[in-house]
């Protein structure tokens, strides 16, 4: 007789796609899957296991989709994360999603209400991607996803935002190779898509290398672009956000901020390590590894923080 399955990560990630798709359909909410298995299927990301499911939700739909997920046992992960202490630096963090977890599902659901790097208004970005959506088979059924060029834009922005990661550098390498193979018509189409979504400038390093025409669109907010550039320049430096915040914080408040920077809450620390037990040794090891990374990157972090402040309007 069938028994209840203890899901593996890969199974959870795949099955969560049609689950979310069904819940969204029932609630009348438009969603698009981005990154993960759908991007791999469309050739916009190298094949590798995912540990989370990325969903772009239409503006105004997040609350209802979150409630539908909660009715199935999913709950928000670490709603009060460490970022609440980053007031000034938050402009460079591009908060963009809410994470959901479930005791029986070893994967995160990452519900995006926006995607950093698209500088057009959220409604326009979603509608543009929705109008050209694809359906990709995941866990035996088709689910709505950004089409190939939409995935290229999303994966490209994600990789450029945190380009210090080796995996994301591999993503950029694959995208460059894939873009080189595109027909002139497809390249022009990508140019129009990036112009419509305000990502021509943010994706410029990728587009130029692949000889994709960089079209100027309506959405060229210089301040948004400046923040994006500060973020991409400092993303590989673990301490930069805290140091940017520290520089903007009055002296009496600095000791408390340093304390929060040094001692992340346990759930926040574990949130990046799905499936690992919360025993104190594990937490201590993660904390120590974080301090080591911070110490190594401190000089570069100080430079990045100073540069960000100098570039303030």
């Amino acid at each position: 007789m069938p028994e209840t399955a203890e899901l593996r990560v890969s199974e959870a990630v795949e099955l969560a796609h049609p689950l979310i798709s069904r819940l969204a359909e029932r609630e009348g909410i438009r969603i698009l899957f981005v990154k993960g298995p759908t991007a791999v299927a469309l050739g916009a990301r190298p094949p590798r296991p995912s540990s989370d499911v990325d969903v772009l939700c239409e503006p105004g739909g997040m609350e209802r989709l979150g409630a539908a997920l909660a009715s199935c046992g999913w709950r928000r992960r670490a709603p009060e994360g460490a970022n609440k202490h980053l007031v000034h630096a938050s402009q460079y963090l591009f908060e963009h999603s809410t994470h959901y977890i479930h005791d029986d599902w070893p994967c995160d659901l990452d519900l995006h209400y926006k995607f950093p790097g698209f500088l057009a208004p959220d409604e326009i970005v979603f509608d543009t991607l929705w109008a050209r959506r694809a359906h990709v088979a995941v866990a035996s059924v088709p689910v709505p996803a950004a089409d190939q060029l939409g995935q290229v834009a999303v994966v490209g922005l994600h990789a450029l935002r945190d380009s210090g990661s080796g995996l994301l550098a591999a993503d950029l390498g694959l995208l460059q190779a894939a873009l080189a193979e595109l027909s002139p018509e497809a390249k022009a189409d990508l140019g129009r898509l990036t112009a419509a979504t305000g990502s021509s400038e943010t994706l410029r390093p990728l587009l130029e290398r692949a000889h994709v025409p960089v079209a100027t669109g309506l959405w060229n907010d210089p301040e948004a672009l400046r923040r994006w550039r500060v973020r991409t320049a400092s993303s590989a430096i673990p301490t930069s956000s805290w140091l940017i915040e520290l520089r903007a914080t009055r002296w009496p408040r600095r000791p408390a901020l340093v304390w929060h920077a040094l001692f992340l809450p346990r759930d926040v620390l574990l949130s990046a390590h799905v499936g690992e037990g919360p025993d104190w040794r594990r937490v201590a090891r993660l904390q120590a590894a974080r301090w080591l990374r911070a110490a190594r990157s401190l000089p570069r972090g100080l430079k990045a923080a100073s540069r960000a402040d100098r570039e303030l309007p």
Partner: protein
Amino acid sequence: MTDPTWRDGWHRAPDVVFVDDGERVVLLNLRDPREGRPRLLAGPAATVWRAIERSNLIEDVLETVAGQFGVPTHQISIDVEAFLRALEGEGLVYRRPRVRP
């Protein structure tokens, strides 16, 4: 052929999604997502699930399972019938009268 297990054809329920890595199959019934718990099929159970995709006739399903595990069909027919009825009880498969050519 009066037993409905034999008289009818077996089909996967349309609300069921699944992942099959060749070793095991995990099913999820989305008819009521709040109630749906992933169900695991391995070994002959997974073979039955795969077999009803190719043919909805129980004799074909029995032949597939028997062939794969090297046993005569009459030795496994009771177990396979019971298994299909259990899947039916969970809403994972359903029966429909066979369409004869």
